[in-house]
């Protein structure tokens, strides 16, 4: 998975990772004293959900989703992250990990391993979810 992970895919998985695992790995990345500089945030705001409805294929604005973003320069590389919710520390850690992965520094592979764990967890969650939902599939009989 490590070789195939695109920047966007990595960002998406870091957006889904748990706070504790992000912060633990980010702390480890920062432990060697590499310079880190905040470029944006971390700031809490909204992402406006724009939907293209399927009937006339017209776009409309459904509403806002709470989100948090950060951008850093770390060891000479820029890292960016956005996550839903308002956890500033988690999004800052995710931005550091994005920069670590971009830089190819020693823990870059660990960032991708973390992403792999997040992806596996998602797969497991969806399997369990479907196991709960599947018994509710119904075939009503038609009275004629």
């Amino acid at each position, binding site marked *: 998975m490590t070789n195939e992970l695109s920047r*966007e895919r990595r960002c998406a998985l870091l957006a889904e990772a748990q706070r504790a695992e992000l912060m633990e790995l980010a702390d480890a990345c920062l432990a060697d004293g590499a310079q880190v500089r905040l470029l944006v945030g971390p700031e809490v705001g909204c992402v*406006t959900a724009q939907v293209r*409805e399927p009937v006339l294929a017209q776009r*409309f604005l459904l509403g806002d*989703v709470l989100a948090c973003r950060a951008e850093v320069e770390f060891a000479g590389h820029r890292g960016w992250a956005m*996550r839903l919710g308002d956890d500033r520390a988690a999004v800052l850690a995710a931005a550091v990990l994005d920069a670590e992965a971009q830089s190819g520094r020693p823990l870059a592979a660990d960032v991708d391993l973390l992403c792999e764990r997040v992806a596996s967890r998602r797969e497991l969650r969806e399997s369990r979810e479907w196991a709960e939902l599947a*018994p509710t599939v119904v075939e009503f009989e038609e009275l004629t």
Partner: protein
Amino acid sequence: MGYSGARGGLEAILAAEDLVRRKRDHAPAPWASTEQITARFRLAVDRVMGEAGLYDEPTAAAAFRQAEGDTLEASHLLRAQRSTLPRLAVSEPVDPDEMTVLRRIVPAFREPDGPQLLGRTSDYTGRLLERPEGPPQPPPETAAPGAAAGPAERTEAQRRPGRFLDLLRKNDLAVEGRTADDPEPYDITRKPARPPAERSAVLAAMARAESGALVALWYRSVLGPDGDVHEITLGELRHGRLPLRVRHPHTGNPVAVGEFRVTEAEAVEDLDGADEDRTRFDVGYGLCFGHNERKAIAMANLDIANRRFGRSGPLEQLLLLTIDGLDSGGFLEHLKLPHYVTFRSMVERKQAMRAAAEAGEDPPARVAEPAGKDCR
């Protein structure tokens, strides 16, 4: 207190607010945590998110707790909170076909593409009140009813089934309204929409409407005085998760930053107008934050009703001007503020009229409403 015509009362106002806080926050009952509210009152939390127009479960739960369970007040708190936040981005257009369904039913057709998935619902069972003495016992380790056959096969078609509208299209039963143009969506949070308005403004207004107001307006449109008689068939109803994507600032490519839950409905309309294609159906669309089926169904029906009758009657105006809970509720609530000066002037007018009548004077001529103003 800065309302016009009265001032002062600060000490009493602070004491009243303090009473709210003390009775609410120090009630002789266990504290309701945010997690408890999102888990046990999820439909209320979803309703608050939808009516506020801001999706975040913990924030909506905090508002619900602060508002002591008053969903409109909670939406007010949430919308006020939202007004303090910057807009970080407008998402890439979300494609509802990407929805991972948690519930999906097609009442119009027995065998649609993909499953009829009841999901988490008590729609088909009697409403009997349960009053347990305490927390229920943990569920047994045995599998849920119907799950004895082992792990369920999970396919893309089951989690993201084809929509009923596409089936109608495939059978040439739906009118084609899609065009090549792609107008920018109207942003009702920046500028109030007034009729005549683009459809995107009406859809946005309905998406954050007060649920009861939308249902009531739908009921009026079906049974009420406007004469917009139309068949009502619910084509499809879904509850599920959609991905939210923004442009990555470095690569310029879309990146998913999370998922949000929505309820979606399609209302099938039997076209019967003289200038309509009576060999096909048309479809109305409803979508709102969270799990709120009544709202999505009402929205879908009102979308098609508005496209057919919105400008030949009052419907578009009603949708744009009367269904926002903060607008209507706020106006109503302001009536509780002191209106001493207003009412005193009304009393003085009555007294002047009475004095004139007692003196045998003719009453002053009634001043007509300005031209063009419809006085009801």
